[in-house]
């Protein structure tokens, strides 16, 4: 047994055990925390399966953002699940059996795991993305070049999805409203336990924050050479703000980044991305054809295009995630 398969099996076992425990736990705080752990293990598995960019994103999203949001909602709502009624189990079991049967049937003809001659690896796409991209786009991280250039439209779509989510959350929960002076101060959800009172955590978080933001910038601009890119950077940026908001309170965080400014940033990123597509069209190429950005030197044009796109993604993702966090947290304060 190779080192790879040993580690793989242990991680898979951990994942399944965690998933089963999550389904059985009725205390939802605990379930949410185990979901964070699940995410961490998934991210480790992604590292093992050579998907570094995905591991980066999964860790940032699954642990950094999802967990905070779920916990925030749990703090607003009820934290314990009712007993699942017996009549509810049957449809679940039926669906699991049907889908499981289909998937099991499908697996009979799936190429062996890791095989070098599977259709995925023998399709000409592999050659183009891994080797020809080195001349056509010229950046070592092929994930970034496929993401931002070959499949740039998917990435635009992904950004639009993020934008839609921001829109949805703001339309449902609204931004943090200013406290009305006439209304007496309501008790905040963390009435007697303000983390800002803890000097240690305040100092550590305060000291950490500039590094977090610096790290985000590094991830943004290093995405062409190593794992990382606009989305990951945006999430890290946002988790920096989340940390700030959690430790120093929402009001201070809101003062640093007011809602109106955030919304402008949200739209700015998206407009830059679409605008870039329009610009390449006006310059005579097709939508998102970065070659035309630097006539005569396609690789430079690609570099430039990818950099603009990644920055646009970073801006929108960071501001949407921050907005979403503020919306959820603000709901708790104003209620």
């Amino acid at each position, binding site marked *: 047994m190779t080192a790879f398969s040993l580690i793989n*099996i242990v991680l898979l076992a951990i994942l399944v055990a965690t*998933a089963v425990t999550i*389904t059985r736990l009725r205390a*939802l705080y605990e*379930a949410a925390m185990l*979901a964070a752990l699940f995410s961490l293990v998934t991210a480790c598995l992604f590292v093992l*399966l*050579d*998907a*570094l*960019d*995905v591991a980066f*994103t999964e860790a940032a999203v*699954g642990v950094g953002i*999802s967990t905070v*949001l*779920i916990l925030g*909602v749990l703090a*607003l*709502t009820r934290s314990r699940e*009712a007993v*699942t009624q017996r009549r509810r189990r049957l*449809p*679940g079991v039926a*669906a*699991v059996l049907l889908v*499981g049967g289909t*998937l*099991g049937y499908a*697996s009979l003809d*799936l190429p062996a*795991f*890791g*095989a070098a001659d*599977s259709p*995925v*690896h023998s399709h000409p*796409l*592999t050659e183009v*993305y*891994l080797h020809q991209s080195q001349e056509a786009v010229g950046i070592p*991280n*092929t*994930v970034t070049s*496929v993401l931002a250039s070959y*499949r740039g439209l*998917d990435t635009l*779509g*992904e950004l639009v999805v993020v934008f839609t*989510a921001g829109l*949805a*959350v703001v339309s*449902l*929960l609204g931004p943090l*409203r200013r406290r009305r002076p006439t209304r007496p101060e309501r008790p905040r959800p963390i009435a007697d336990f303000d983390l800002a009172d803890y000097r240690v955590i305040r100092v550590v978080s305060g000291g950490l924050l500039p590094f977090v933001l610096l790290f985000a910038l590094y991830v943004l601009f290093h995405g062409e050479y190593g794992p990382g890119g606009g*989305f990951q950077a945006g999430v890290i940026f946002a988790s920096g703000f989340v940390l700030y908001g959690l430790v120093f309170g929402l009001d201070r965080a809101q003062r640093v980044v007011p*809602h109106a400014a955030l*919304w402008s940033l949200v739209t700015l990123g998206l407009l830059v991305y679409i605008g870039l597509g329009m610009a390449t069209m006006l310059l005579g190429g097709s939508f998102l054809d970065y070659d035309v950005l630097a006539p005569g030197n396609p690789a430079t044009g690609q570099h430039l295009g990818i950099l603009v796109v990644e920055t646009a993604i970073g801006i929108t993702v960071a501001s949407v995630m921050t907005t979403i966090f503020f*919306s*959820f947290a603000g709901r708790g304060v104003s209620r």
Partner: protein
Amino acid sequence: MIASHYVYWTFFALMLIGLYVVISHGNLLKKLIGLTLFQVGVFLFYIGLGKRDGGSAPIISDGVEVYSHPLPQVLILTAIVVGVATLAVGLALAVRIFEAYGTVEEDEVVERDRADLATGHDGHQAAGRDSGGS
């Protein structure tokens, strides 16, 4: 078969666990957690498709010959983002449902709607709750 496919089977098992939670659990938040598990199973499946034995991360570097496939990774990056977006919207809806009904158990919510119907109450949301907009 077992040695070459156990990875896929585990991923499928993870999907099924998530699917079961989504369908069978009545708590709206638990449903969303289940949805996340379901999606993660699919993400792993895709990444597994791109893995090559002895391969390395598809970041080109001298002295490395075998790389895993970058395309599934790109797809899953997109899918993860879609997943977290869905989760955020679902959570926001759950908060509003909690504020409107006082519970996040699906059965209780339905129960309350039925009671409304019996009393002829229309279910209009109170004006104060309607606090969206930017």
